[in-house]
């Protein structure tokens, strides 16, 4: 309403200025991302000419090199495995726990709720070294008693660690939704003779679908993009790696070898899945963020 009244020339100038700044900012984000996509299909000689020139052809050899020679294909599979497994474990563990913590009164419920809330403030960057030492000691113990070890350089263990460190945020977000569901639903189910487990799985979980989707989206992004824990727990040179760690190694190797094409192809391989997901679900994501705005 207000803006219709402003037709003076200074108002128009102001409007133009606003659009100018907004577009400038949008470009400062879009151009670098587009630049990487362009560079990923350039041949190596093209990196020495004018950097703003469009790629001469679709040089897909970069992707082949990144996929096989730099093992990005293998790392991609590892990342898919770790992310899927971590999200599955997380949902299986966190959903029943959040339901019970939100809906049931029992001794210790308050303490557990406070403990998980406090967990929101524990950042993984602080505890990555103790986790590393714990698993290393565990391996040494296993080797002494059983002669073999498996805790370090193990994708499944990494997925468990991811799921565990995401628990406080997930429980916080889902149980804050469960609290709002009226008690009548469960009472009706109990009268119909459904047990606790069936009521939870068949009545309550389907109702929580929107928050479950939010949780899956956020955790997909954080597990897929994570690199510090992965780098620390997968430190063996020959062991399995996840995509961001593989990319980091590729970046360091290609910088010194001045072979840029595969590096940019690797960048595209890491960010393409997140970009596609984002375009599909951006409404859910930015809305969900304001609900669970605690994730720094």
């Amino acid at each position, binding site marked *: *309403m*207000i803006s219709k009244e402003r037709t003076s020339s200074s108002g128009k100038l102001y*409007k133009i200025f*606003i*659009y100018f700044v*907004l577009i400038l*900012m*949008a470009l*400062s*984000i*879009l151009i*670098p*991302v587009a*630049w*990487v996509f362009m*560079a990923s299909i350039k041949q190596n000689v093209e990196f*020495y000419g*004018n*950097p*703003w020139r469009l790629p001469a052809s679709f040089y897909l050899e970069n992707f082949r090199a990144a996929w096989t020679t730099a093992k990005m294909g293998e790392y991609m599979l590892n990342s898919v495995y770790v992310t899927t497994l971590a999200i599955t474990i997380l949902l299986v563990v966190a959903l029943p*726990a959040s339901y*019970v913590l939100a809906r049931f009164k*029992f001794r210790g419920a308050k303490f557990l709720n406070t403990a998980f809330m406090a967990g929101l403030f524990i*950042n993984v*960057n602080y*505890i990555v*070294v*103790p*986790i590393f*030492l*714990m698993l290393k000691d565990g391996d040494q113990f296993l080797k002494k008693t059983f002669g073999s070890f498996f805790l370090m350089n193990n994708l499944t263990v990494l997925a468990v660690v991811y799921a*565990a460190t995401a*628990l*406080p945020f997930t*429980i916080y977000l889902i149980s804050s939704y469960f609290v709002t569901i009226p008690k009548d639903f469960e009472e009706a189910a109990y009268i119909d*003779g459904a047990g*606790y*487990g069936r009521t939870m799985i068949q009545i309550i979980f389907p109702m929580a679908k929107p928050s479950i989707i939010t949780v899956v989206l956020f955790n997909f*992004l954080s597990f*897929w*993009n994570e*690199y*510090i824990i992965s780098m620390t727990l997968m430190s063996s040179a020959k062991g399995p790696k996840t995509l*961001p760690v593989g*990319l*980091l190694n590729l*970046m360091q190797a290609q910088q010194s070898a001045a072979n840029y094409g595969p590096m940019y192809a*690797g*960048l595209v391989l890491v*960010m393409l899945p*997140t*970009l596609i*997901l*984002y375009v599909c679900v*951006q409404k859910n*994501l*930015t809305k969900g*963020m*304001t609900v669970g705005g605690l994730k*720094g």
Partner: protein
Amino acid sequence: MKKSIGRSSFILLCVAPAVILFTVFMILPTINVFRMSLFQRGAYSPGETFVGFDNFIYLINDAQFIRSMQNTILLIVVVTLITFCTALVFAAILTRENVKGQNFFRIVFYIPNILSIVVISGIFSAIYKPENGMLNSIIGLFTNMSNPILWKGEKLVMVSIIIAMVWQAVGYYLVMYMASMSSIPESLYESASLEGASRFTQFFQITIPLIWTNIRTTLTFFIISTINMAFLFVKSMTSGGPNGASEVALGYMYSQKDAGLFGYSMAIGVMIFLFSFALSALVNKVTKRDVLEY
């Protein structure tokens, strides 16, 4: 039909896995951070020796630690200031002005947030490349550079990291502020403009006071997340180089772990934790105002 399991066993069954995972991978490591900071433990000598506060005494005289703390504080102040102002102003513009394509801008500004920090550091290595880099080739259009600007050189490396961190963070806070600004009732602005209040007056007298609670929360986020993000950025962009010029506190902690000094590394962790806790408490206290309601 009889109930298959009792109430208390149902509760136990549901809560136990979460409690076990949480205890093993979060509570115990957190306790260990504090405990190990009082011990000496090396990578090659498996035993631990209790050394009291020796690690901390050594720490406050460690020039490299002090430098990394200085860099961290610099990043907290500068990145917070720039990101905060930019996000706030753009959120106000996108919610208050009838901007066409409001949705488009919101979507674009949030993109950096969904990218891995490794990807962002890859993007910025293309931007900062001395020969043929994006930034130097733009600057080259206006002035004739005899020597390319070394963005990751000792002098400019902190500036480069600040730019990358702001680039990544603005979208997140912008969406946060937009959400709380859009819940302010339109009628307040209408009556204000009837009384002749300009846009700027409205921004400072209506918008800022009414989202103050949100601003306070995000200021705490800024402190905590800048400490963490600085580590993720520096580790993947420069690894603390050149010559330790861009080392940050958590990065120094991690490098001591790599050097095999686990106890010392944890003492650094404790110091950073106490620092961030104290700073958040201070900011919280300073920004305390009466909550306005509408």
